[in-house]
């Protein structure tokens, strides 16, 4: 599937097998800063899709455009359309989106510092109406995933360590029982085995409850291991996409994202001095 094909498609056709489709969107911040220059991507129902790219490529911006949080950052989607479950998200407020099952875990945590960990988790269930016991149950599930959170359940989130806040943010999103989760750099600042755990949770939820995921990740290695499909973003454009497997085998991806050259992992000591990245398209 290529960018060109996507453009050609009429924007409003709802398709049964896609939970999310982003059609050629353009995003401008502050009326002058053009950040996304035509990004298109699809997430199939029950799929796990990775969004890769360097710093500043526009991953976070894409996710925010999807969950409609851009307006709060004085950003605007000026072109294109985003369909979630067949509905235009631009017409929905962020909370309606959450009600419909699309929730975002923000980069840089965004926990409520003055609420305790437990209260943070409970706010995640704000949109739910299925009663206290169900919510309790899910909370226990989250504590099961992250025992560290259970230990710290009564401390103010603002005082917890960086990693604890990250777990809290992921757990909070799970509390809303979403159909689709937009994960923005979930592995950032987490200890290796927790990273592993988070990705296991992703796989687990995906298997058991058909939750779809869009992962923006720097940890390409992990992301491609768990995702089924991937998009690579550079400078606000999708420069490459394909099956996770084929991406992982691509020489360029190997070199620049996986750190494998000539078939073996390089040491960080061997990094050449300031390589210039080869750019696609841009």
């Amino acid at each position: 599937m290529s960018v060109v094909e996507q453009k050609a498609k009429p924007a409003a056709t709802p398709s049964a097998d896609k939970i999310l489709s982003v059609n050629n969107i353009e995003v401008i911040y502050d009326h002058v800063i053009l950040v996304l220059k035509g990004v298109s991507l699809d997430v199939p129902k029950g799929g796990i899709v990775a969004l890769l790219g360097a710093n500043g490529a526009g991953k976070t911006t894409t996710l925010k455009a999807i969950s409609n949080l851009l307006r709060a950052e004085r950003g605007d989607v000026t072109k294109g359309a985003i369909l979630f479950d067949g509905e235009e998200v631009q017409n929905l407020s962020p909370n309606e989106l959450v009600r419909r099952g699309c929730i975002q875990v923000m980069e840089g945590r965004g926990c409520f510092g003055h609420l305790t960990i437990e209260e943070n988790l409970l706010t995640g269930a704000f949109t739910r109406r299925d009663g206290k016991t169900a919510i309790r149950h899910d909370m226990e599930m989250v504590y099961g995933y992250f025992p560290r959170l259970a230990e710290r359940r009564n401390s103010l989130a603002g005082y917890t360590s960086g990693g604890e806040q990250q777990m809290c943010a992921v757990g909070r999103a799970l509390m809303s029982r979403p159909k689709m989760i937009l994960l923005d750099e979930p592995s950032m600042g987490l200890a290796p085995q927790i990273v592993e755990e988070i990705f296991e949770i992703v796989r687990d939820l995906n298997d058991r409850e058909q939750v779809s995921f869009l992962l923006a990740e720097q940890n390409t290695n992990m992301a491609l291991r768990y995702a089924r499909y991937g998009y690579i973003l550079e400078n606000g454009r999708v420069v490459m996409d394909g099956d996770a497997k084929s991406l992982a085998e691509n020489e360029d991806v190997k070199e620049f994202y996986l750190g494998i050259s000539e078939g073996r992992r390089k040491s960080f000591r061997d990094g050449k001095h300031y390589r210039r990245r080869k750019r696609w398209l841009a």
Partner: protein
Amino acid sequence: MRAPGGSQGGREAVAGDILLSVEDVSLSFGGVKAVSGVSFDIRKGEIRAIIGPNGAGKTSMLNVINGFYHPQQGRITFKGEARPRMRPHDAAHGGIARTFQNVALFRGMSALDNIMAGRTLKMNANFFWQMLRYGPAMREEVEHRHKVEEIIDFLKIQEIRRTPVGRLPYGLQKRVELGRALAMEPELLLLDEPMAGMNLEEKEDMSRYILDMNDYFGTTVALIEHDMGVVMDLSDRVVVLDHGIKIADGTPDEIKGNQAVIDAYLGVAH
């Protein structure tokens, strides 16, 4: 201090003097014991990693070292001098610089100004000349600008000089933050997860910066990082914390094989 470029290949533990030593430090917040009875030392010129699971007390340890928290117990000796109630700015005067886990840049200022701010300690033109922006004040400004431009070149952030840092993507912010710390020309640099949120290539670059800095300027580095690849490749010695307690201390190879560390932190992946 080693000669520039003298560190290719496997690194021997650097046999410098002890620059900083942490003796039996404990710190708790209410009921939470963030650090308990930890001792270790950092030698001149080495890259010392501090690792451990989330909430192990790594950041707290750095905060103790540069005087932001005061430990309830224990002693920190820096350059042979113990300063019990040290304030953060004293640490800075003594030559300790750091970067932060959640980027703590001056958001309203440009990248250039942020790095220039790092040189505050080294500037001393008086108020009068500052007012006129003339004479000593201007000379000083230009002189330090040269230094800062060197750092900017070193970190390859020329294009974003004038961008307010609040608008930079995360990775670049981290780089600017490193620049700001470098501008202080510290003897000891504390890096708190400098590579979180970076992709591989950027991590490689960042590793390069840290190594070069260590080589060329002889800066001693204390590094917190969760990417084991980076830690094992870069550091001379590693100290491992878990639940506020030191569970291991040694060269990367020793740590890799340490069962306690594997159980508490590394997991099966390594």
